[in-house]
């Protein structure tokens, strides 16, 4: 099913959601030549398909330049996809752009606001732009100000506010019309730790609301802890493609189950060279061990890094036995298995040329 035919499908979604179907974005120039089109330029988003469900906080994680902001901008209709279809609550972001945009609350990166305006003037303006009915405008503004704890600065000019406040003003403007979909691009950038904490709580809170009571909340970040602490679901994007998808735990488990652990063995200080060699050979001879790497530590002990093969199970017992068998007497001071952290998973995914992790959220 090509994206072109998808354009004509009318999808009714009872629950708000963001659907992306083979979305690509190319920056630069297309030069049509005989037969096929040669493409020059940067493929910022490359054939991304995903569905984002309401009621949970979804994080879009990726290094700078990975295509996060481009993807978000296509979702908010600020950019038009070069190919593929995005639907917001079932509205095509290009063909029914007005309806799609009306259901989104969007906080762009670094929260651009009019510095010369007063907080409440700005909110009133945004309320009018989103056609909040005149009689509900006041209540909507009060609610947004209240939720973002801005009540005490409502008469201040935005230009005089600190970065954190400004970010909150942007957020207040985004939730003003009680949108079904809330998209936050780097919401915590430039905030101090306590502000980040408050922002996290606020974001989690915001999954409740919208017309159906459950809201799509999508936030992007390049900071891992932020995402792992706030989000129920993490999408990792790198070089324009979704590389991983799942809850933070799932991602780690997946990584643990699929990626190889590492065993570290440290000998006692002063153990003889030959003993060390024997241990190394013994361990290296174990089935399931791929390689052993020895390094000398400063206190005279040796550290053996043991890399298992992909199929190997838990090798701790076998290694301990093999080590004990290879060297007489007490020889070891530590034997440990290292499983990867989310950070390492992230780095691994990002640095690997092609994802080996099956992305659960990818539509076919």
């Amino acid at each position, binding site marked *: 099913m090509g994206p072109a035919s998808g354009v004509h499908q009318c999808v009714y979604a009872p629950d708000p959601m963001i659907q992306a179907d083979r979305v690509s974005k190319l920056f630069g120039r297309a030069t049509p030549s005989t037969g096929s089109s040669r493409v020059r330029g940067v493929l910022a988003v490359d054939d991304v398909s995903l569905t984002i469900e309401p009621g949970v906080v979804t994080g879009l994680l990726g290094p700078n330049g990975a295509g996060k902001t481009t993807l978000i901008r296509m979702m908010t209709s600020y950019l*038009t996809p070069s190919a593929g279809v995005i639907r917001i609550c079932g509205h095509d972001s290009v063909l029914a752009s007005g309806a799609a945009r009306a259901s989104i609350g969007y906080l762009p990166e670094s929260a651009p606001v009019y510095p010369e305006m007063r907080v409440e003037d700005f909110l009133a303006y945004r309320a009018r732009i989103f056609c909040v009915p005149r009689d509900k405008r006041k209540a909507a503004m009060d609610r947004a100000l209240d939720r973002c704890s801005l009540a005490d600065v409502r008469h201040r000019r935005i230009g005089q506010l600190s970065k954190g406040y400004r970010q909150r003003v942007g957020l207040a403007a985004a939730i003003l019309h009680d949108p079904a979909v809330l998209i936050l691009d780097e919401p915590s950038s430039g905030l101090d730790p306590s502000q980040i904490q408050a922002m996290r709580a606020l974001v989690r809170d915001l999954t409740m609301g919208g017309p159906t009571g459950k809201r799509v909340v999508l936030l992007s970040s390049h900071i891992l802890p932020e995402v792992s602490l706030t989000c129920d679901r993490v999408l990792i994007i790198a070089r324009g493609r979704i590389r991983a998808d799942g809850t933070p735990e799932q991602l780690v488990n997946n990584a643990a189950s699929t990626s190889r652990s590492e065993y570290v063995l440290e000998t006692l200080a002063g153990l003889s060279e030959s003993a060390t060699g024997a241990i190394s050979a013994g361990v290296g001879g174990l089935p399931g061990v791929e390689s052993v790497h020895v390094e000398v530590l400063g206190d005279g002990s040796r550290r053996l890094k043991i890399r298992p093969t992909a199929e190997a199970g838990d090798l701790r017992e076998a290694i301990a036995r093999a080590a004990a068998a290879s060297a007489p007497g007490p020889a070891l001071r530590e034997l440990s298995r290292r499983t990867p952290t989310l950070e390492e998973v992230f780095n691994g995914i990002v640095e690997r040329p092609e994802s080996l992790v099956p992305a659960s959220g990818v539509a076919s």
Partner: protein
Amino acid sequence: MTRTWAIATREYASFFRTPLGWIVAALFLFLSGLVFAQQTLRPGEPASLRSFFGVWWSMLVFIAPSISMRLFAEELRTGTIEPLMSAPVSEAGLATGKFAGALMFLMTCLAPTLIYAGVLEALSRPDYGPIAAGYLGVVLLGMMYLSVGLLFSSLTSSQTLAFMLTLFVLILSEVGATAAAARLDEPWAGIARSLSVQPRIADFARGIIDTGHVSFFLIMSAFFILSTALALRVRRWH
């Protein structure tokens, strides 16, 4: 409509929120006052604003770009264009709203010059027909100039560049049209002449309301506003 109006009023109010708006208004009044005192306020001169309107159009060449330069360029520079263009506002609505805000500001600048008509009334018996027609002409001309400025403002994030480009195009089109009309052969000369605003504005100043002139300014304004909308749409495609 509500959205367009919201954008227009925000734009209008923002002119007064920045010192630039006040300075432009004051500068405009200063130059107008100078022209009025030098050209009209002299014994024996006709009690009309005709010469005044005659000079005004050339002042608009400078005033209109200085009003229009910030319309989009400012938003592009600060990034506020992003929440604006991801809000449910059509490109045409956005361009129209911005344009209307600038036009309202221009008219606010013009409003104090009604005092000149009051001065004439106090001194003599002016004919209000040409005065009203002249104001109509200036507003229409202002519409066209602002719409040109709007387009250039949407093409660059630099206000200075938007101002210079608009000024350049306005001056070039006027001077070029006059020069071309004098040099070209007839069908082309006619077209070149019809692009020149000076005779049109002179008609208004004389007290002639020519539907041809009125629709020329309106159509040209609509053209540039729609071109701006198109430019904004192309910006999404990038």
